[in-house]
């Protein structure tokens, strides 16, 4: 096919000139021309305009739940503002979906954010249910060390299970284990009042670090070399 306006031969299946968009008429022997590019598809168009993604649906449903809880809580004049906890848990679910489940971040970064988010939820619980909870300083004294230990334990078990396929998880476990010393450091600065759980947490994480170094020293050094190269 030839465009008489542009004086060029059009080398793909079409009825219009790619340059001037004027109509062109097929000539003899043009039947064998194949499209040079995949055509625009309806599926492709639809994909670009869809807003019905899982996080968006979750966000919409969460918003409805939160509004209902807010209305019930305030409507019944209840003294405890428990709707805040509902909101926090729903927000936690959303952030977990985005930053843990659907994220490509390293395992230790995901675990780190989980610890931060869960700690914030517990802090909010302490504020909201202040009158119900009688134990003082439980968040930093008890909850934080336990959360860190559970995180390290979970990641440690996973990395042991998949060590042959993914040695990088050992490095993540090692890095996360360093967080185990946070409560004891906080204790040193007077922010934590009871030493028991902080000491247990530090001891547990120290054991994990030693074990990882003993059993996977080579892998850890390799992983550190590639991740920390500068």
């Amino acid at each position, binding site marked *: 096919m030839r*465009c008489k306006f*542009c004086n060029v*031969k059009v080398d793909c299946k079409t009825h219009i000139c790619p*340059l001037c968009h004027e109509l062109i008429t097929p000539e003899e022997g043009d039947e064998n021309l194949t499209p*040079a590019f995949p055509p625009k598809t309806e599926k492709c168009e639809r994909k670009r305009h869809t807003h019905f993604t899982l996080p968006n649906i979750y966000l919409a449903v969460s918003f409805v739940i939160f509004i209902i809880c807010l209305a019930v809580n305030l409507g019944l004049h209840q003294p405890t503002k428990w709707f805040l906890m509902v909101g926090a848990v729903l927000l936690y679910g959303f952030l977990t979906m985005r930053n843990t489940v659907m994220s490509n971040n390293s395992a230790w970064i995901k675990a780190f954010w989980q610890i931060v988010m869960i700690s914030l939820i517990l802090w909010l619980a302490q504020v909201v249910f202040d009158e119900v909870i009688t134990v003082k300083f439980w968040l930093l004294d008890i909850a934080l060390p336990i959360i860190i230990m559970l995180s390290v334990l979970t990641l440690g078990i996973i990395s042991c299970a998949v060590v042959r396929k993914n040695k990088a998880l050992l490095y993540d476990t090692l890095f996360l284990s360093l967080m185990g010393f946070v409560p004891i450091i906080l204790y040193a600065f007077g922010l934590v009042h009871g030493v028991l759980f902080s000491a247990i947490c530090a001891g547990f994480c120290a054991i994990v670090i030693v074990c990882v170094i003993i059993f996977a020293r080579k892998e850890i050094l390799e992983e550190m070399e590639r991740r*920390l*190269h*500068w």
Partner: protein
Amino acid sequence: MSEKTAKWLRLDNSAKIFPMMADKQNQNLFNIFTRLTEDVDKEVLQRALEITIKRFPSMNVMLKRGVFWFYFEQHGGKPVVYDADPIVMKKIGSSNCGGFCFRISCYKNVIYADFFHAVTDGTGAAEFFKSLLFTYFTLKGYPVDGEQKVLTVGSPVNPREYEDSFLTNYKKKKIKDLTISSLKGKKSYRISGIRFDNAGKGVINMYTPAKQFVKVCREHNCTVTEMIGALFMLSVYETKIKPLNLPPQDIQLFVPINLRKIFPSITLRNFSLFSRIGVTATDDMTLESLTQLIHECLKRDTQKEMLSDKISTTVYAEKFLPMRILPLFFKRIIFKISNLFFGKNKKTATFSSVGVVSLPDSFRPYIKDLGFGITANNACPVTITAATAYDTMCINFTRKITDTEIEKRFARYLTDFGIDLKVTSNFWEVDEDAMQIL
């Protein structure tokens, strides 16, 4: 490949910047495509890809995030041949390319190979693509021969193929001796137009007999690169600046220079720098004056001393202690902010002249033509690439704007010279319903 590099690779000097600049919409991509004389056998291509990738350890990698820099880790999986997406040079991500930094796809008789610039440049990609075609043709049972132009699967891997040639050609200099000013650009005209409201790009390929084009270039006493660059600058001026009566604007072309031709290197990773070719667009511009200008700029920017200084400057920036110890997160922020304020508006378009892609003669019965393309984005909405395979030159325009005025004007210049042009397009600017009616 040594034991150490088998597991991970540092990004080369040039590649370090690409992952940092990538965001949800933009990524430095380029592609190679070829139209075969018959439809592609996807299963055979898949097998060919699985075999070929083993010969190219620097391609068989996935991008990972370190504390200070990105790095490549050896990929344990197999690359997959995809059905070509209507969106040309769609972003390469871990979800749609299996973690690889390239994507092979096919549609009817066309094979596309999209590459993220972090993994290689045009020369490295061409070598990989030639090897893939060789394996494909061999598996199809065609009587092809590498003719020492193809890195065949059985050939030994030279460690120099995956070296960082910037480092090997780096000469340590004091900061006062570095030519930082040569890397800076000045504010230039940015091509205007209505942007596509989606991730797609418009692509127009112009195929022309190489001999005809070279003949016209000889008549004008210039090279193919100079001719295309000059015609493109004229087209931009006449379609975008002159009709709007804009005050004098600087048109700046960003032209990659293949350093392998100047420095001893056989690397398949990035080894190219760029030349900025700028002119203040006025009515006085002529084809002759522009070809002369491009000639002088390229001559200046391809001097070994000059390039050696540029290499030293870029490597110095990488080795600069505060830069090295800055965590990746902060590096990315700094790069993005500096690009936001200083990077944009520094070029009108990217023009890459790949030259002649040396294909074995035995491929000739099976290949119709071959071309290169560079992705366009909002900052640089039009890119132009020229590559020649056998007797056919393919001039590729990739754009992020709907109108095709520049291409139309460019084609008019060529046809006025008496050059035969064949044109293809993906018609991204045309509404699908309108296409059906027509």
